C-alpha cells in the first residue's frame, strides 16, 4: 500500500469508544437503547450484532452525535458526545445505513465536497480522493454520476467519503445490507485492512452473523435496547459450548415421536416447523448414539444435521429467540394497498 493511501496517521490511546449506561427514549415512547455499556479499544473492530429494531442504529446515531442521548454517557475519541460534538465529528468517519448520496454529482465531486467541508485544501483533496477512489475500486467510475452507480458502488463510495479526512474511528451502520456476496467480501477486506494496517477503530453494526463472525475482534449482541452478550466470537460460542442436533422426520413419522426420542440426549430447543432440535449434553460424540437410538425405535428421518455453536445459538440462549427472524415488525410502506371491499355487494 502506498504512503498516500495510508491516510490515518498513528493510533492513539484515545482512539476508542466508551459507553456507560446509555439510554435513548424516543418522543413517542419506545426505549430504543436501554442502559447499554461497552468499551471499544483503539484499533479494534467491534461488531454490534442484533435483529432489526434492536437499537443498533440508534446507538450509532448517538455515538456519532446525530442524536442526543436521553441518559448515560458516551465518549468517542476521548470526547463526550453530548458536550463535545464538534470535536467528536472531527475524529470520526461515518457510513450510515443509507448511503445518502447526491445522484447528480459524480463520485469525485462527492469527494471534493466532503473534503472541502472537512476543511481540506484543494491541493490536499485531489490526491487523497484519487487514492481512496482507487482503494475502493472506483477509479474508473469516479467521473460518472452517482445516480448510475450500483448498490455496491454506492457503499464503496460511502466508505471512501467516510475516510477522506483521515478519521481515527470509523462507524459503519449495516454496511453490507443489500449487497451481493462479491461486494460484501470486498468491503470486508477493506474494513479489515483499515483496522489491521492502519489501526483504525471500527464500530460496525450488522444483522448478519457471518459478518460479525468474520470481521469482528469482539462482538456485542443487542436485543430490545439491551446488551445481552459481549465477547470475542470464540468466547461467546464457547459459553454455549455444546453443539445442537436438528432432525426432520420422514413423512409417515409423527413429529412427537422424534421429539421424544431426541429429548433423552439433551435440552430441547425451538426449531423451525416440522423439525426437532436438542442441544447435546455430551457433545458431538453423542451423534452416533442419537442415530442408533432413532434406528432402534424405528424412527426414520428425512434430514439430520449437527450444528456447531453459532452466534445465533448465543442469541437464542440469551433471548430465547433466533436472531434470524427476530427483528421487530416495522411498518414498511409497500406502495400497494389492499382493495377494500365495497360497501354493498
Amino acid at each position: 500500500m502506498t504512503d498516500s493511501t495510508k491516510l490515518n496517521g498513528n493510533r492513539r490511546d484515545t482512539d476508542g469508544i466508551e459507553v456507560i449506561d446509555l439510554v435513548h427514549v424516543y418522543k413517542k415512547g419506545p426505549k430504543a437503547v436501554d442502559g447499554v455499556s461497552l468499551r471499544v479499544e483503539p484499533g479494534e473492530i467491534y461488531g454490534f450484532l442484533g435483529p432489526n429494531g434492536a437499537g443498533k442504529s440508534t446507538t450509532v446515531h448517538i455515538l456519532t452525535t446525530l442524536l442526543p442521548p436521553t441518559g448515560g454517557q458516551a465518549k468517542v475519541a476521548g470526547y463526550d458526545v453530548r458536550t463535545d460534538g464538534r470535536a467528536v465529528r472531527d475524529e470520526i468517519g461515518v457510513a450510515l445505513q443509507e448511503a445518502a448520496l447526491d445522484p447528480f454529482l459524480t463520485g469525485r465531486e462527492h469527494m471534493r465536497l466532503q473534503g472541502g467541508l472537512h476543511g481540506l485544501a484543494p491541493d490536499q483533496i485531489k490526491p487523497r480522493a484519487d487514492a481512496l477512489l482507487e482503494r475502493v475500486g472506483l477509479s474508473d467510475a469516479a467521473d460518472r454520476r452517482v445516480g448510475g452507480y450500483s448498490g455496491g458502488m454506492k457503499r464503496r463510495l460511502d466508505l471512501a467519503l467516510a475516510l477522506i479526512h483521515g478519521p481515527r474511528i470509523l462507524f459503519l451502520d449495516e454496511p453490507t445490507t443489500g449487497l451481493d456476496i462479491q461486494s460484501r467480501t470486498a468491503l470486508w477486506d477493506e474494513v479489515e485492512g483499515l483496522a489491521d494496517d492502519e489501526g483504525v477503530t471500527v464500530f460496525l453494526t450488522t444483522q448478519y452473523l457471518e459478518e460479525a463472525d468474520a470481521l469482528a475482534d469482539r462482538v456485542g449482541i443487542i436485543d430490545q435496547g439491551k446488551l445481552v452478550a459481549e465477547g470475542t466470537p470464540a468466547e461467546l460460542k464457547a459459553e454455549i459450548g455444546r453443539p445442537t442436533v436438528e432432525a426432520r422426520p420422514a413423512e409417515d413419522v409423527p413429529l412427537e415421536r422424534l421429539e421424544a426420542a431426541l429429548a433423552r440426549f439433551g435440552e430441547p430447543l425451538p426449531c423451525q416447523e416440522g423439525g426437532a432440535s436438542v442441544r447435546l449434553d455430551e457433545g458431538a460424540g453423542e451423534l452416533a448414539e442419537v442415530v442408533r437410538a432413532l434406528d432402534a425405535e424405528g424412527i426414520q428421518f428425512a434430514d439430520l444435521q449437527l450444528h456447531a455453536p453459532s452466534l445465533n445459538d448465543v442469541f437464542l440462549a440469551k433471548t430465547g429467540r433466533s436472531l434470524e427472524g427476530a427483528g421487530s415488525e416495522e411498518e414498511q410502506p409497500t406502495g400497494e394497498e389492499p382493495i377494500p371491499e365495497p360497501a354493498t355487494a
Partner: protein
Amino acid sequence: MEAAALYANSPIRTQARYLAWRSVVRTARQPIMIVPTLVFPLFLLAINASGLSAATEIPGFPTDSYLTFALAFPFIQGSIFATNTAGTNLAEDIQNGFFNRLQLTPMRGSSLLAGQLAGVLMVAIVQAITYLLVGLAAGAHFEAGIWGVPVLFALSFAISAGFGAFGLFVGLRSGSGEAVQGLFPLMFVLLFLSSASLPRDLIQQDWFQTAATINPVSYVIEAVRSLFVTGWDGEALALGFIVAISFFVVSMIAASFAMRGRLERT
C-alpha cells in the same frame, strides 16, 4: 494530518462556496428545474398579452401595449418557482439522508442556507435575461432604458432570494418535498390576488382591490412594471425593493431558526 486541525481551515465562506458549487451543479444538471420555469411563464405571457389585449381600451389603462404591462408577470412567476427549487432540493436532502452526511461535517447551518440560495440565484439570472430578451423581441417597451437593466436584475434577484429563502424555511420545517410542492398553489393565489392583471385603480371589485392593496406581491410587480411602463418611478421602485428585501430578511430568519431545529446534532 490530525483530523482536528482540519476544522480550523473550514471557515463559513469556504463551506458556503462548496455548498453553493454543489447547488449550482445540481440545478444545472436538472433541466426539468430550469426549462419549465422559463417556458411556462412565457407561455402564459403570450396568452395574456393576446387574450387580454382589449384591457388597454379601459379608460385609464397606463399603456397601449398589454405585453409591456404584463411583462412583469413572468419575473414574479419565475421567482415563485425558486420557492420550489430551493425548498425541494433541501427537503430531498433531508428525506434521503444526505443532510445527515452534511451534519457529520463541520458544516454550519448558515453555510448551507447561503449555498442553497446560490442555485436559486443562478436560475434567476437565466430567467431575468430570458424574459427581458423575449419580451423586447416580441415588441415590449422598456422605458427605463439601459440603466434600468441592472435595477431590473437586482430587483428580480431580491425577489427570487426572498421566495427561495421561504422555500428553504418550508423545506427545513417539513423535511418533505411534497409539502414544498404543496406551497405552489398558495403562491399562485398570492400572484393572482394582486395587481398582476390590471392596475389596482382599475380593479372594480372592492374586495379584490383591497386584497391587492394588502398583498405585498402587488408592490414588487408594480416596481418591475414601472421600469417597463413608466421608466423611473421612485416610489414604486422603493416600495418594491423594501418589500422584496424585507421578505428575504424575514424568510432567512425563519429559515435560520428552522435550520437550528433541524440540526439535531450535539
